[in-house]
């Protein structure tokens, strides 16, 4: 894709006191026909300092973007790469639950920290590029290298489901019913355990604990087009390795992608969402397919007791059909399977909580009435 490079950041960074190394200034690279244009870039307090045997570079970019199209933008993903620091990895910043009208501007913050050895080259090219933009009508623009179309589309479907649900609560029992639901949901969120997680690929097993095979239990969601039939993973101490699942397409449409949520249970009976097992496949109606993953999940112990995994539960969290349409669990599915206790609320629900927290119930109802 041909690009239009906007390197206004360089000038701004130069003005910044204690500015970062000029070589570390991010390059912002948007395509010529990009649906968003960069109005300004604020480098904030970017800095570079030696710490121990390493050089730490803090980079901050507050971008101001304008919707240059005639359609409303509901999501955007920017890809972030620092090729010289981590050639094997890259990052992204995604904004979902947006509603940006044509010509409107919106901010995007990109905050990064780069750590490299002191003796390494000081040339740290960081590039910010556009991976994709999702519009209100679910059309998409972008090279989609990070599969942002799927991610933002699922988020958009969840946003529509949750807005509809909250509106129905207002219609049923007025704002007080909405308040009750929001408070309950916030309480669930506060009780939800959160763990740090590592994903390791291409490495060696580091845990010397004896390994055991554990079978998956499955939460069967009645409306799900996919039926998980069996699954197993290897567990050693605080590591979970190489899950193998088998699924069956019980819908009348071909499926090209699915994601299984993965809940772990420890010895004390606490459950938490470990991650997801995605699979790109071509699954005709009525057919079965295995899902194999070779990566390892680790749950680092930062003090306290090591995590002792006792059981695993899988559930279908999203499905994409071959025609591009998407299935997600309904609110009833989430409530019936007690998934709400374990999985985090959708992006939109999280945003609505924030409005309730900051501006109160009236503002929340007004927000729901917007669209």
């Amino acid at each position, binding site marked *: 894709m041909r690009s239009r490079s906007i390197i206004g950041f360089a000038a701004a960074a130069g003005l910044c006191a204690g500015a970062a190394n000029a070589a570390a200034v991010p390059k912002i690279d948007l395509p010529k026909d990009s649906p968003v244009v960069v109005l300004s870039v604020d480098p904030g307090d970017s800095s570079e300092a030696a710490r121990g045997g*390493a050089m730490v570079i803090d980079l901050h970019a507050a971008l101001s973007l304008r919707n240059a199209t005639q359609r409303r933008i509901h999501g955007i993903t920017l890809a*972030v*790469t620092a090729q010289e*620091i*981590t*050639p*094997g*990895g*890259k*990052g*992204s*910043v*995604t*904004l*979902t*639950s*947006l509603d940006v009208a044509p010509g409107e501007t*919106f*901010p995007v*913050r*990109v*905050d*990064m*920290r*780069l*750590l*490299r*050895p002191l003796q*390494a080259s000081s040339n740290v090219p960081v590039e910010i590029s556009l991976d994709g933009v999702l519009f209100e009508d679910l059309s998409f623009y972008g090279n989609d290298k990070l599969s942002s179309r799927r*991610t933002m589309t699922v988020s958009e479907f969840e946003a529509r489901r949750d807005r509809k649900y909250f509106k129905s609560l207002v219609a049923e029992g007025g704002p007080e019913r909405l308040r009750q639901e929001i408070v309950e949901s916030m309480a669930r*969120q506060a009780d939800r355990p*959160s*763990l*740090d*997680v*590592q*994903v*390791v*690929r*291409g*490495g060696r097993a580091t845990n010397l604990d004896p390994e055991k095979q554990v079978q998956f239990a499955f939460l069967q969601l009645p409306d799900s087009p996919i039926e998980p039939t069996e699954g197993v993973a290897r567990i050693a101490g605080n590591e979970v390795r190489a*899950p193998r699942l088998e699924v069956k397409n019980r819908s009348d449409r071909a499926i090209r992608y699915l*994601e299984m949520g993965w809940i772990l249970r420890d010895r004390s009976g606490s459950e938490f969402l*470990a*991650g*997801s097992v*995605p699979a790109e496949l071509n699954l005709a109606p009525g057919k079965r397919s295995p899902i194999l*993953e070779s*990566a390892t*999940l680790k749950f*680092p112990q930062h003090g306290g007791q090591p995590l002792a995994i006792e059981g695993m539960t899988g559930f279908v969290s999203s499905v994409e059909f071959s025609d591009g349409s998407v299935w997600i669990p309904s609110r009833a599915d989430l409530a019936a399977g007690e998934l709400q206790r374990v999985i*985090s609320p959708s*992006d*939109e629900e*999280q*945003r609505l*909580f*924030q409005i309730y*927290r*900051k501006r109160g119930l009236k503002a929340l109802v007004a927000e729901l009435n917007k669209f």
Partner: protein
Amino acid sequence: MKHPGEHQLALFAGGDIAGYWERWRISRHVSKCGDCQSEVRALSEASQQLRAIAPDLPADLNWNRLAEEMTGNIRVGLAAGEAIARFDRPVARRPRLGWNAALVLTCATAVFLVAFWMSLPQQQAQHLMAALQRIRVERIGALVKPAAAPQDEVVLEASSSSLDVRENDRTMSLTHPHSDVVTVSVSLHGSAGVRYVDADTGQVTTNKVYYAEP
């Protein structure tokens, strides 16, 4: 009847015997002795073959040095043969009681150490290891270890404080401002993410790190 030496026969076969009397004496013996005749014939044939291949030999071939080397090789061969012959001779058995006792003692010590180590609680074992290592460093200094093999693993880590992609001793982190609710997620396809609501803008932001596919 005394046969001429091999050296003399070789000189005779090549027509290189210096003295007339000596040449007559060997000639006389060879004419009567079948063994020496066949030896002289063989030497003559070898000499002729050598002449035939002479153009193919290196121009600066040092025959004296070659002869010395061959002599040396023969001596080495003889010495090796002698050594093997000595080895094959029966050796007088010595009493082995001392070695046996040492062997039994070593095995018993090893069994005791293994049993002791296995019965030690893990924490104490680690403590002991650390102490032994400290003593070793104090006494003989730190061991110089060979450079670690290059790691080929990329680690993605999501925590409520940051989101890292680590490769060897380099890290790229996507950081986020303090937020009341941070949701951590990972995908086994090779990504880790942190979602938060920006307190200033109210926007839902999801930072992610991925393995970069080649």
